[in-house]
């Protein structure tokens, strides 16, 4: 596996640790719905809100990794989140967050964008 993919995995781990530190419960990692080619990196919970988190890792600061979450990705995430929410017993609220991690294992900056986007009008 290429090096940058490893960094991606590490970044997800860093993000999960960050969430736990912030008082979130991490419910799922790399969750995939039954259908659809999409993966939700982290599903966490705080009170009655389920937070669907997309983690983006980059090694350089050349451009904002959050920009990589485009329309197409949003639609896929929303579809997946919809099916996850429906599978729950309880009426949770949703939230979509993006966590960006820039740097390398030794030195990185983490940015947590809460409520990063809303589902598009369908």
């Amino acid at each position, binding site marked *: 596996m290429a090096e940058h993919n490893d960094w991606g995995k590490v970044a997800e781990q860093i993000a999960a640790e960050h969430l736990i530190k912030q008082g979130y419960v991490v419910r799922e990692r790399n969750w995939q719905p039954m259908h659809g080619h999409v993966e939700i990196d982290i599903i966490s919970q705080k009170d009655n*809100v389920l937070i669907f988190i997309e983690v983006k890792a980059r090694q350089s600061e050349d451009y904002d990794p959050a920009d990589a979450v485009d329309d197409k990705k949003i639609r896929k995430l*929303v579809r997946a*989140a*919809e099916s996850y*929410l*429906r599978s*729950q017993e309880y*009426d*949770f*609220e*949703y*939230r979509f967050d993006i966590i960006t991690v820039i740097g390398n294992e030794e030195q990185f900056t983490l940015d947590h964008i809460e409520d990063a986007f*809303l*589902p*598009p*009008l*369908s």
Partner: protein
Amino acid sequence: MLSKVYSAAIQGIDAYVVTIEVVVERGVQFTIVGLPDAAVKESYQRIVSAMKQSGVTFPHKRTIINLSPADIKKEGAAYDLPMAVGILAANEALQCTNLNEYMILGELSLDGSVLPIRGALPVAIKARQDGFKRLIVPKANVTEAAVVNNIEVFGVDSLAEVVDFLNGNSDLRPTIINTREQFRLHAANFDFDFSEVKGQDTVKRAFEVACAGGHNILLVGSPGSGKSMMAKRLPSILPPLNLQEALETTKIHSVAGKLSRGSMLMTQRPFRAPHHTVSPVALVGGGINPQPGEISLAHNGILFLDEFPEFPRAVLEVLRQPIEDRVVTVSRAKYTVDYPASFMLVASMNPCPCGYYGHPSKPCTCMPGQVQKYMNRISGPLLDRIDLHIEIQPVEFDQMADTAPSESSAAIRERVVVARAIQQQRYADEKGVYCNAQMSSRLIRQYAWPDEKGMARLKEAMTRLNMSARAFDRILRVARTIADLDASETVKTHHISEAISYRNLDRGNWGVIGNFSPSNK
């Protein structure tokens, strides 16, 4: 949970109730159904931002909004506020139990303030008709909506204010306007007055006659003779609007979004002067989202067409039917709407391309035939619908320098009002006839037939001046109005004589070079 909020859509100049149903349930998606147009779909962004700025939470749950009835196209941003209220109610963020007593309209801006909408007046009328007790509208529209009595109208500035109000945490009071009182107060303010016009007594008299009988009028004069200046002063001598007329006219302007912030009933007759590059649709109304045209904006007032022959033929011809029917029906594949269009047509034109045909001092440089060709740009049937044709001569210097004020508009108006009252009484039993200009041939025979001497004068004039047959009815109608101004029961010879003098363009010799005789000779 499900919530229902009531709002309204405009079709033609009337409002229809629109029910906004909102369901908030488990899930993620946000959906608007029920024939929304693009601006309604964009509400989503505005609502989310406005809620955030107003300190209320947008429910992060699956939200479905339905606008019913689904067969009426919902357009514009006026549903932002009711949709936001519906979302909050469905999310159990409002403690209001009587939402069904409210009708709500308003556009939201991103910062949560409520922006003005179109058609607040027809909405208020509809809300009262359908038994709603309260109406929430943007503050900018509140005076306009409060014209309607027997319904509590609340003007709001922001979404936060609405939320507080519906939660019972606000001392917002309904706006109350004494419509009749306000109407009386503002009735007699005019920017222009006939006392500022020097000389031109014949023209003023013709205007008086036109206003008294509701006749359409065509002004022919060289450049700078004061056609437009005089026409601008016409509203000041028309009889004042009555409450019913004012309501109708205001409704049209409300739907067209032409009312300024804080305006109430329109108390003055409208004066519309579209430029001659106007398109047929802009003139009569229509468009993808139907809008009233200039002729409807001039309802109960004056439509002034300056440089009459410069208007494209297609534009002028569309005027023919509304002039007769006083209403225009705009039919398209997607809709059919009626707009009232009872206006007085005032047109002005130069007598010829160079502008100086018939000028007392300047020679006309037009080629033979050019004058007639210019005249022919206006079709016979249209000219036929204009009762008075008068020539305006430039004012001479002595008159211009005269400092003595001329007769004021108020004095002229008094006579007009009296003449109109006589007509109203006369046509009380005739449906759809309110003034002399609307008389049919039968009514002319009944009311406007001159005595024998008058008839003889008419016959003589018509043969001598080589007048066309269509002039006959016109002359009698105008003569009737002149008789009314004179408080005369019958149409007398001198009434006929005056009426004949207002038919310049019907003379067979018009446009023949060297044959011109100024009317005030």
